[in-house]
């Protein structure tokens, strides 16, 4: 799987909030067409790491680069224009816009900059693919939870990102929905997309990720194939505590 060239390089990324070090010296690479998981116990700094990549937060030190271009000092909208799209831990759709406008919003300003009929058709295609075609002109208030999640994913895909960041995209789904969700990401993987996902659902990590980075207290404690890192004694200790 990891035959592609390196797309994203995280090098010694550190984030401090006052005295608290949320992310400390994180270093890892993400290759093209690779699905990379970031896992770890609650409060280990995974979401902060995602926020550093997407430009929501600035690194205190270290760097994050995509294909040689520094992302770490850019504001979020510039990072987005370079081709990083994301979903949010707590689903965030735009309540005052219709379903299709939500998707167009994802593509109009970011990496692909589609507008007009082009944007409309592309958004329709995406909604079709994600199974939301029937809801296209509805207000978003009418959507179920998984449909909101799908919509958020469609919005992220609308910009044709180089790297897709999924922050606990599978969280909160019931078992049937979870299977639909896993299948959906698995399809994206087969298309050859580069994805970084933060996830707690272990089944999803085993079946979706090519590689994983395990974080604990802001530091990387393991990296490798999911099956390997999940049997690593240090990782088990991090999850279950010292006994």
């Amino acid at each position: 799987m990891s035959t592609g060239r390196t797309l994203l390089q995280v090098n010694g990324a550190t984030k401090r909030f006052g005295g608290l070090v949320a992310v400390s010296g994180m270093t890892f690479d993400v290759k093209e067409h690779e699905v990379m998981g970031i896992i770890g116990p609650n409060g280990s700094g995974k979401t902060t790491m995602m926020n550093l990549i997407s430009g929501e937060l600035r690194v205190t030190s270290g760097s994050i680069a995509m294909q040689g271009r520094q992302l770490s000092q850019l504001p979020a909208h510039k990072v987005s224009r370079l081709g990083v799209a994301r979903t949010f831990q707590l689903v965030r759709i735009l309540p005052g816009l219709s379903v299709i406008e939500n998707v167009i919003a994802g593509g109009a300003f970011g990496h692909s900059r589609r507008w007009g009929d082009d944007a409309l058709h592309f958004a329709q295609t995406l909604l079709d693919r994600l199974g939301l075609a029937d809801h296209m002109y509805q207000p978003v208030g009418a959507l179920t939870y998984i449909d909101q999640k799908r919509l958020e994913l469609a919005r992220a895909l609308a910009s044709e990102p180089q790297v897709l960041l999924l922050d606990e995209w599978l969280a909160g789904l019931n078992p049937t929905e979870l299977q639909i969700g896993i299948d959906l990401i698995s399809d994206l993987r087969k298309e050859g997309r580069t994805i970084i996902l933060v996830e707690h659902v272990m089944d999803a990590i085993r079946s979706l990720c090519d590689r994983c980075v395990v974080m604990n207290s802001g530091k990387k404690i393991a990296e490798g194939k999911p099956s390997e890192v999940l049997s690593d004694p240090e990782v088990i200790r991090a999850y279950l505590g010292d006994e």
Partner: protein
Amino acid sequence: MDILISGLLLGGTYALIAMGLNLQYGVARIMNLANGEMLVLGGLAAFWMFVAAEISPLLTMLIVAPLAFVGNWLIYVFLLKPLVRRAKNQGQLEVDSILATFGMSFILVGIMVMIRSEYFTYSFLANPFEILGSTVAENRLVAFGAAVLIGLALYLWLNHSRPGMAVRAVSVSPDAAKLVGINVERISALAFALGGAVTGVGGTLISTFITLDASVGVIFTMKALIIVIMGGVGEIRGAILAALILGLVETAVATLIDPGLTLASAYLIFLLILLFRPQGLFGRRST
């Protein structure tokens, strides 16, 4: 030296008003733009009692406080709580409460104009007083003293009593406060009412040395807001320091350059704070 002393005396009273607004905005999360009118009402009460019955403003204060408390409590419960409940997010509550309190402010001005459309002029303790080589009016000194006492009482109550602690808890995090069994709505109403009472009393004190009129409230709302933002929302010590700074700067500008520029100088400070320390002098940078 004159500037220093007058500035500090003015700042002390400003601190009290800012404390009132801080309770309302920092705890109840309502940006009350009718705050200045509450202050003017306190001043109007003092004027009226003094002119009609020669009652000292210091006694009027004791009547203003409970009345303002009840009045603000009613406003919160009947007009603002429905907005808090219907708001889907903080942004919507902000817009709604700004518009609603603007409405209240205009209504209060309208009512006060009907009661008295001229200046609330009266003379209370307007005798010169010598302090550290400077001459100040006694009424300023008395107002300052009263403001310090009330501020101190409030500070002790917040830090050393059970309801005070609940108020501080809601100010830090309404969600967490709910989890430990604090009735957030009731504490918010309490803080809003208390804030209104403090502001009303502040108005009574200010009216002894600044001549108020029915429409001047908005200027005091502005000043209180600038102080609260400068000090950091929810920061009592920050508000006191900010109030003293504002009092000093205004007095200095009025004495040295032109009394017409006091508002402009307050704005300049506000602009600098917004540009360089939007979280306030004492506030922590939020993430």
